[in-house]
């Protein structure tokens, strides 16, 4: 189990966003977190990545308790995420956006920076090579010097995923990566994610609404509704489950 959530609850004032949810994600799985809007999926992400503290429960990463850890420290433990509404750094190129992902991997001190010690040059070179490789793998190498936010929506998505990959994660959290994409782009994305999973030996946990996409991609899903787990298991069984169908009535994209 690379990721384990034990009895997680989260209240915001009077609202219970998540109630006693537990699940586990195995290494190299592509795990889907699905459910109608407002079910608590992004909240779950925020708890895993340390942006929120759960009201109850624990988050374990490879057995290590990361529940109360600060968000930037969790990245160093190997968890990276993307955002629903793509948050790239607007003043920087694609290359620089990715290099920021490598921040905790690129090791040289402030002092060494000012006086341009050799370690600065070797570390920068290594990191640059690594991210150029990532860009090549994701098909965005041609944009490396462009302003990240000037790219098309689909490419910006890729940059965000690439940036998350640059942090050398073991676990990648993707928040609605296929949002706003047409079926062709979605298919491409699914293939890309398979490729990434294999090539970088990582586990992927994603939030999605597109059932066809989820069906194609995910080994296992967890269905949330109003903060409660209503199903966990294979996606094929999920779509015929009564509770799941009820929850999605009106929200369903037929597979």
């Amino acid at each position: 189990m690379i990721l384990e959530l034990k009895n997680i609850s989260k209240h915001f004032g009077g609202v219970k966003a998540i109630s006693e949810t537990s699940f586990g994600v195995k290494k190299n799985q592509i795990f889907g977190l699905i459910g109608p809007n407002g079910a608590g999926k992004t909240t779950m992400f925020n708890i895993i990545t340390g942006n929120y503290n759960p009201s109850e429960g624990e988050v374990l990463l490879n057995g290590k308790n990361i529940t109360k850890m600060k968000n930037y420290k969790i990245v160093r433990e190997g968890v990276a995420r993307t955002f629903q509404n793509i948050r790239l750094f607007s003043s920087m190129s694609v290359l620089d956006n990715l290099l920021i992902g490598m921040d905790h991997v690129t090791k040289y001190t402030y002092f060494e920076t000012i006086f341009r010690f050799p370690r600065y040059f070797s570390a920068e070179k290594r990191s640059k090579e690594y991210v150029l490789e990532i860009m090549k793998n994701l098909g965005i190498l041609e944009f490396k010097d462009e302003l990240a936010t000037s790219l098309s929506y689909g490419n910006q998505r890729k940059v965000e995923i690439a940036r998350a990959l640059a942090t050398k994660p073991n676990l990648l959290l993707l928040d609605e990566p296929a949002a706003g994409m047409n079926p062709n782009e979605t298919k491409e994305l699914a293939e890309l994610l398979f490729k990434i999973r294999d090539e970088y030996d990582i586990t992927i946990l994603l939030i999605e609404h597109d059932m066809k996409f989820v069906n194609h991609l995910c080994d296992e899903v967890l269905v949330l509704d109003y903060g409660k787990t209503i199903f966990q298991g294979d996606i094929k069984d999920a779509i015929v489950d009564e509770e799941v169908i009820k929850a999605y009535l009106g929200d369903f994209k037929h597979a």
Partner: protein
Amino acid sequence: MNKNIRNIVFIGLAFGFLFLAQNSLDQYTIRVLNNIAIFIILAVSYNLINGVTGQFSLEPNGFVAIGAYVTSLALLSEDMKWELFQLEDPSPLILALNLDLIPALFLSGIAATVVALTLAFPVFRVRGDYLAIVTLGFGFIIKVVAINSPEFTNGAIGLNEIPSIINLYWTGGIAIITIMVMLNIIYSKYGRAMKAVRDDEDAAAAIGINTMKIKTYAFGTSAFFEGVGGGLLAILLTTISPDLFQFFLTFQLLIIIVLGGLGSMSGAIVGTIIVIGGTEWLRVLDGPITLFGTDYGAHPGLRMVVFSIILIIVMLFAREGIMGKKELTDFFKKKKDQK
């Protein structure tokens, strides 16, 4: 390698300019150039925390004051101190403080940085725009402390007869060093992290950046060079007092970096030349004004009004300033890529 040669050429040209200027220009122009050099140091430092890291701060006048006092006290001989201190006897600590120019300037920087790090902890721990208010208040407090501890600072009287031991080589040279340090920081993972904090602090944290640490680095670095700049300013002026480091100094720097382009080092340099050079020219506004034959009388302070209007207009209509966030070198790079 190409880049290194280009850098060496630039520095060589710069020193060549300094040599020519020091030896051939008149006193008045040299004074203005000295002023410009010092303000370049202050502006590129201020730009680091405000423009590059995006944290609105009003710190310069406070740190400049610290630097000015530290350097002055370090350069004044023991005898001088006995002579100058009129309100109270100088404290033994002050009497013992005797340094040469370079250690004095270095100590100025360190002193400012220590204070900055102390302020950084309560302020950066917390989200919100408290940095501006805290640094604004800090500027006032420094003045209060300077006035109320005459055994350290000679109180409201201030210090004079500070040895005038610098020239354009010093101010220009240190300005060049400061620019190089700033550029080295910006073109590194620390600079990238600072810009990330500016662009989207929460996303930066989500990518693994310790935002509090980065802000502290930027703030401390700005403070250091503002302290050094303060030391140079004290020597240039040869006389300082608590009244000298008012908010207007910070305001001038703010206009400079906004006009030049928040976040751009080249912009800060360009802005300094325009504003400090322009200040001389705008001095006429503080005197009697005759426009199209009508005498409007003298209104001291009109210059300040014009400055504030310029700032507001830039913020409302040309927020990016002259350079935006780009550096001069970016324009050269673009051309090279297009070949």
